[in-house]
């Protein structure tokens, strides 16, 4: 099975709008999923600049799926769905 890739946006907007808590994913994901899921930080994903969408920040991308107003729980839920 292909690896699931999680990209946490480290752009200024995502960080300011609450992305700091998402850094926990760096510890949680390897612990929970081993090498089935890869988590990485990413430069600005460019999602906030489209049509005032900064209000939906922080963003995380799980493969091609965009998680808006991302929280640790929300991201884990999406990963679980992918792996199921």
């Amino acid at each position, binding site marked *: 099975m292909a690896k699931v890739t999680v990209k946490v946006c480290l752009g*200024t907007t995502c*960080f*300011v*709008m609450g992305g700091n808590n998402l850094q926990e994913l760096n510890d949680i994901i390897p612990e929970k999923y081993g090498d089935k899921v890869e988590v990485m930080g990413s430069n600005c994903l460019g999602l906030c600049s489209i049509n005032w969408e900064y209000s939906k920040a922080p963003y995380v991308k799980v493969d091609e799926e965009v998680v808006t107003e991302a929280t640790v729980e929300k991201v884990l839920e999406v990963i679980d769905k992918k792996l199921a």
Partner: protein
Amino acid sequence: MAGQAIHLKKEILVRIIKAFLSDDFEEQTRLIPYSMRPKGMEVPYRCCIYKERAIIKDRTIAGLGFPIEEDDETVSLATYAKKAMERKEISDKNLTVLQAACKGCATNRIYVTDLCQGCVARPCTTACKFGAISIVNGRSVIDDSKCKKCKMCVNACPYNAIVKISVPCEDSCPVGAIKKDETGFASIDYDKCINCGRCTVACPFGAVHERSQIVDILKAIKSKKKVIAMIAPSIAGQFPGTIYQLKTAILQAGFDDVYEVAQGADITANTEAKEFVERMEKGKNFMTTSCCAGYNQLIKKHLTEIKPYVSDTKTPLYYTAELVKKELPNAVTVFVSPCVAKRAESFENKNVDFVMNYEELGALFVAKKIQITELEETKYTVESSKQARNFGVTGGVVESVKASLRDEEAIRPFVINGLNKDSIRQLKKFATSGCCDDGCNMVEVMCCEGGCIGGNATINNQKTAKKQLETLLNDSKDIDKI
């Protein structure tokens, strides 16, 4: 603070800044509640979209720097925006309560729930020292007029049937300055308030706001004057990237230069070390630090008896601002701050013109689409020491004073990590007895738990902020000895 409430406050700040940068500030400000809650949108929190908009309007009033309490609902946001543009003076009342949001909170009291079994032992009645509990229809009932909220009955009940109904803002305030009055609304007693900002974080409705000076700062940037940002040491770790990239980002946001307040912290540490030696030679038992604005407010309003033991050394901000104004007498100085207490300090210091907190600076970056991690680094004219850059972490100030001395062992530190009822009592005891616990001779006081990195307007959580800060410390030089 509850994630959504803080998200909302930041979003409003971004919108105010965007409105300012547009070609029609007044109209764009008027539209903020409608853009955030457009017609037909699903209502996220309140009863209806109209109330949502009314509350967003109130939050915008605070973002424009005005007190929400004085709004009579007839004045439009466009008028507020105009008034903000015309304003010459800022107020010393730094907080404002959005009372429409705080009404949902029940009064602070002890309450017997339905879980009360009406037991035979009745430990609650014996636990209560004030005779406030009686048995009515086989159940415990509390007489609120006698209850002192000591919680003895809460702890005594084996069924956990008695609960304390909390009012988070009241519980968070270390000095009893915020209270729900007879009408059920919270209000702040400024004679008591030490500006610690705890209530702004504690309220789950996000009802307590800082009165922002962001419009005044943007106005200064737009004028021809030089505007200088002075960034507090705790800022390292609050944004992505290095503090050198952060300097570039602040310059891009429109400031003319950036100074590290850590530069002043080096002076504070050295001066305080000299003062410590002098005081000990004069036979004093202990000395306390003097750089935390919340602590200084506490001394002034609630703890005057400790005054003789407090260091006369000025704060890092004081020395930095003095330096900037000496170099550039006509410049406008803006302190970039982790907390609301520094607004109070700055108001009393003629060398500091405005204060912008980390959330506001973050909002400015968002509005201007500045990507810090993609920027080049810009060096500071003066590189600060490792110890000065660690000033905003609990224990960091006393460490820097220690490191300034040749005989570091001369200092036996006692660290107050956060002001609360217990630590205030402890400080009172030190003041009245004239000596500190455990033979300690230097008391560091920080109002916020964790230090300034735990300030009410910080963006990052303490754990990751500290990690980021440590990377900077590892690359910084040691402080000069006196």
